[in-house]
């Protein structure tokens, strides 16, 4: 079951430049929350702060409070541990090129010391089924390399890989932007299904995607959270004028 994320007064910097200003937001459990906004508004930065990926960039830092269930993300827990409970799927599919499909999915577990092969087999199968890739690769699991799949398949492989460590939250940073419409459709179906077990936060520059897939939406502009509400409300009767301008395409 997924848990919710409570963000309070989150600020983030790249060196001296401030990228996020005082973000506060409640991401509800077991739902999909979309983060939308024009380029450079801080959506990716925000999401990367949730699993402390932001700090892997040299000279980048973040301050504030992020709570996931009982866990304080920034205080008292190692980043590595956070990232095992909050998974991430990136914009461009990045399977490990020297590993087979099986090894890719199992990577998160194997690299963290999990050795039981029978259970690994089960987990790999389960993850690939969850990401709707199982039927397409079940015969070539160990023979084909992760990089030999098509773009859409690679992204589903990355989703399976993220799911294999059984996180409670899944962060997706524009997961479909490098994919064709058919693959995009398949992944959107997936998200719909995954919501039942995980909490999903999806960054997207495609507003139609947000309205298809997410129950909640947050609109970012210039590093600030302008509005956060149910998706229907954001897209039909937004409270803030800036939101309305973005939705109706006056900018962005």
């Amino acid at each position, binding site marked *: 079951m997924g848990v919710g994320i409570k963000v309070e007064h989150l600020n983030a910097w790249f060196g001296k430049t401030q990228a996020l200003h005082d973000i506060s937001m409640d991401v509800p459990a077991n739902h999909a929350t979309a983060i939308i906004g024009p380029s450079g508004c801080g959506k990716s930065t925000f999401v990367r702060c949730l699993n402390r990926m932001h700090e*892997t960039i040299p000279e980048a830092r973040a301050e504030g409070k992020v709570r996931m269930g009982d866990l304080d993300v920034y205080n008292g827990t190692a980043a590595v541990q956070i990232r095992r409970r909050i998974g991430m799927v990136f914009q461009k599919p990045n399977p490990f090129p020297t590993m087979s499909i099986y090894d890719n999915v199992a990577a998160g577990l194997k690299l963290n010391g999990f050795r039981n092969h029978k259970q690994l087999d089960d987990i790999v199968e389960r993850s690939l089924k969850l990401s709707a890739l199982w039927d397409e690769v079940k015969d070539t699991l160990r023979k084909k390399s992760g990089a030999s799949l098509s773009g859409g398949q690679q992204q589903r492989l990355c989703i399976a890989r993220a799911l294999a460590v059984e996180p409670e939250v899944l962060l997706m940073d524009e997961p479909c932007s490098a994919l064709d419409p058919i693959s995009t459709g398949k992944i959107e179906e997936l998200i719909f299904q995954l919501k039942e077990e995980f909490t999903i936060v999806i960054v997207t520059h495609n507003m139609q995607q947000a309205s298809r897939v997410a129950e909640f939406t947050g609109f970012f502009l210039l590093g600030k959270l302008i509005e956060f509400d149910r998706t229907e409300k954001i897209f039909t009767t937004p409270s803030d004028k800036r939101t309305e301008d973005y939705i109706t395409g006056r900018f962005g």
Partner: protein
Amino acid sequence: MPNSSHVAITPISVWRRSVNNLVTIAAAGAVILVLLPLGAIFAYLVYKGIGALNWAFLTQTPKPVGEAGGGMANAIAGSALILLIASCIGVPIGIGAGVYLAEYGRNRFGDLIRFTADVLNGVPSIVVGIVAYAIVVLAQGHFSALAGGVALAIMMIPTITRATEEMLLLVPQAIREAAYGLGVARWRTTLSITLRTASSGIITGVMLAFARVAGETAPLLFTAFGNQYWNWKVNQPTAALSLQVFTYAISPFDEWHRQAWAGALILIVLIVLAVSAVRLVAGRGMLKGTT
């Protein structure tokens, strides 16, 4: 430039055309002139080397001066021993330094190390021999395979460091991020993901460094020193193929001259094998299936 249709376009002068052709011929001539010695060297190596190569050569130690027969078996083994020692020292340090430069050293201190590695690369091999003599032979009081190995390791390190760094930098940052995103610790990511992805390129670099030092003679002259007999001990003077070829070549004995050719042939064959192995490994491809 004013362009009038009344002016006939003059053809390129004969002079300019001839110069052009002459230069092309000269350049082609240069190529031939350079390839000639290469061909000649290989031809003589094969011709004279094969003549002197026999089973005895590969299995026996040198006979006393003046006697016919004998071989360089101990030199082949000695070279193997020295190269093994050199690799055990040079490869881990070289790769480690390369990892440091690529993953942690994108700063001024890293630049200093990079620069120093290049300086190290340019040190003449005979000078490396002097230094190995000073720090190993003098400290131990005798020549040894260890000293020879240390000298060769010093020469391997810059090449391996450079190759490792270059290959690691080619691994896309997205791969590392994928691992971080799974909650894999940084050290584990570097070891199991980044290094693994770059592995075939790194192996290429290591083998090239290996091939380069395999033929070196100068650094071994007063470190390993040479030996007429079998030696497997790390702390004794040891024969080496390149040393033996040198000693025989400058000797006044025809028999030894013959054997020098055979030894040289074996040496070049081993080096070619090492370089070919490189191409095979590199061909397996580090990024299978990606563009």
